[in-house]
Structure formats: C-alpha cells, structure tokens
C-alpha cells in the first residue's frame, strides 16, 4: 500500500464521514472529531485488507457506522444510525436554538419526512454522496435512488413552503 493512496482516500472521504458522524452525535464537534479520528485510524489499520469489490466510500461508511454503533452501545443509548439528530438537549441544544430561523425551518420540515426519506436527502444533500455511491451503500440502482431522492426533495419543498405560508 502506498502512502499517497491512503492520503487520497482520506482527502476524498473525510468531509462526508465527518458530516455523517456530526449529524448523529447532535452536532457535537469535539465528539465528532474524536470519533472521526478513531474511524480513520481503524481504516488505516484495515486498509490492506480492504475488499476492492466494494467502493472505498462504502467501505469507510460501513466502518463509521459500526464504530458509531459501538460508541452508542458503550453509552447504553438507543440510536437509529440511519437517521440524523438535529436537536440536542443541554449545552449543544442551546446552541442549536440560536441558529438562524431558515435553518430551523428546514430542519423542522426534514423531521416531518419519514426516516427513509430523510436518509436519502441526508446522504445526497448533507453528506454529499453521489447516486452511484449511494447505490453501493443502499443496494439500489442509481436511477431508482435519483427518482426517489427527487420525490423526497419535492415533498420537503412542499413542507417548507407550507411552513413558510404559516
């Protein structure tokens, strides 16, 4: 394994994995940084056993998912890792309440989507995966995911316009 290969892998995936973790630990940046460090350290240790039949982004996504599952299990918390957490109690919840109104409006509309719909919007528009990468993670064709995500966005738009009318 060449170092530059791993560096390229790191640069390509850091932002998306960070966002994936960040939105699941209630936007707690320091916790997200610790977890992301551990995830990439684990990826480095396993990089030589990486199975090239799956994409690298799907592979690191799976490592992150398992690592987060262990994190919440150790904390004895029941969390749906396929979903995002926009709100938090305590210190970080206070911070979230100070965000701009538009942002809160979008978050509120997203919470009205089903978990599956929210997941598609999150993967595509928050975490930044391509439809091809999403297909490798979710086991569906890119075209089907594209159609489904567009429907979710249309629904989200309706929810946002409804709330803005109110």
């Amino acid at each position, binding site marked *: 394994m060449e170092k530059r290969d791993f560096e390229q892998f790191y640069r390509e995936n850091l932002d998306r994995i960070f966002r994936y973790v960040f939105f699941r630990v209630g936007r707690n940046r320091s916790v997200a940084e610790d977890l992301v*460090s551990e995830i990439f350290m684990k990826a480095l240790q396993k990089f030589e056993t990486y199975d090239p039949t799956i994409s690298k982004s799907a592979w690191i996504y799976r490592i992150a998912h398992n690592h987060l599952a262990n994190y919440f299990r150790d904390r004895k918390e029941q969390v749906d890792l396929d979903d995002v957490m926009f709100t938090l109690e305590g210190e970080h919840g206070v911070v979230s309440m100070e965000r701009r109104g538009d942002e809160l409006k979008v978050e509120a509309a997203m919470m009205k989507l089903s978990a599956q719909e929210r997941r598609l919007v999150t993967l595509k528009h928050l975490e930044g995966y391509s439809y091809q990468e999403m297909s490798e993670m979710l086991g569906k064709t890119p075209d089907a995911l594209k159609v489904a995500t567009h429907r979710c966005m249309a629904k989200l738009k309706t929810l946002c316009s409804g709330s803005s009318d109110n």
Partner: protein
Amino acid sequence: MHGKTQNIMFWLKRQLRALRRTANPSREFEAALWSKLSNEFDARHTTSPVHRPMWKFATVGVCALALFVSTGMGVYAYESPDVSVGHPLFGLKRGIEQVEGQFARTPEDRARFHQRMMNRRMEEAERHLARPARAVRILEMAADELDMSLQEFTGNLRDPAVREQMLDELAAENERYAEVIERVGEHVREFRREKPEEFRELIQRFRVQPPPSDEPLIQY
C-alpha cells in the same frame, strides 16, 4: 406560480448547502488528523525494514536457503559413514536416528532398528580403521546396538516365523561383524598396548578371546 416553486426549491437547496457547511471539519482538524495518520502509517509500513517488499523477499530467500542447507546437512549426516564419533554433524545424525527409533513400535521393528544401527556403526568403523581409538569407540556403540537388538529378540519377540527370519539375518550380520572386528584388530594392537584395561573391557563386550601372538589379534 412556477417561478415561486422554483424559488422555493432554490431556497431549500441553499439552506441544505448552508447546513452542510456547518458540518464540515475544520482545516486544522483535517491537518492534525492527517499528521497523526501519516505518523501511524510510517510506523506501520515505512520505518520497519521487514515490511519493505525487498526485505520480505530477502527474508523468504534466506529462510529457504537455511532450510535447504540444514536439510542437505541432515541428509549428508544421516547417510554418510564419514560422519561418526567426533564429527561436528554426529550429534545431528544421532538425533535423526533417535527420531527414527521412535517410530519403531513393535519388538520386531525395534530389533530391526537396532540391527540397522549396528550396521551403520560398523560401516563407520570401517571408514575409521586408520584411527583405532575412534574405531573402537564406534565398535562399542555397535556392540550396544547389538545388545539392544538381542534384548528385543530374546525378550519380546514371540512370533516363531519372525524369530527364525531374524536369526538368519543376525547370523549373516555376525559374519560381517567378525570380519569388521578382524580388520579393526590390526589397528587395535597399538591401542591394546597403550590402554590395556579399556581394551580388556572391549574384548569382554564383544565376547572374544585374545589370540596367541602369532594368530590374528581378535577372533570372533
């Protein structure tokens, strides 16, 4: 209406992009984590020479060569009568023979094993006729093997057919044994003069009588 819908979609995507930006890692964190990963990578892959492909290849080559040489030495030590008492490889040879002896499970196998070892010692003794002290020591070992073979034969071997066959074989071996002792005898004369006590003990072990001075030194 259409324009308003488009505007809402545009506004929505802009809000999602803004939300996404809030979730980006800081550049400081990105640099610090890469530094940590880079060090870990170096520790795991670069700094240890044994992880370099060239070193792996060399290690495999050296191990293969060592295996080849040690196997060759073992075969040579085991097969060659030149390797006997006093030879650096004699310990290896005895070790291999002892392992071979562990596979002899039945009394017949053990008797044949000791008989075979006796033959090997006699071949070695023949090679060292010019060095009587060494030849005598080897013949002592041959006598031990003969003793052990006879113990198995007289004590444990019950099958009459096998006993008869082995008796024939031992008779043939005895003839050869006598011949070897006779040849060694010429060289042992000097040894008898120098170490009469050890010589007498040796004679007792082979159950031979000292000959008159005008006859061959050792008779079987």
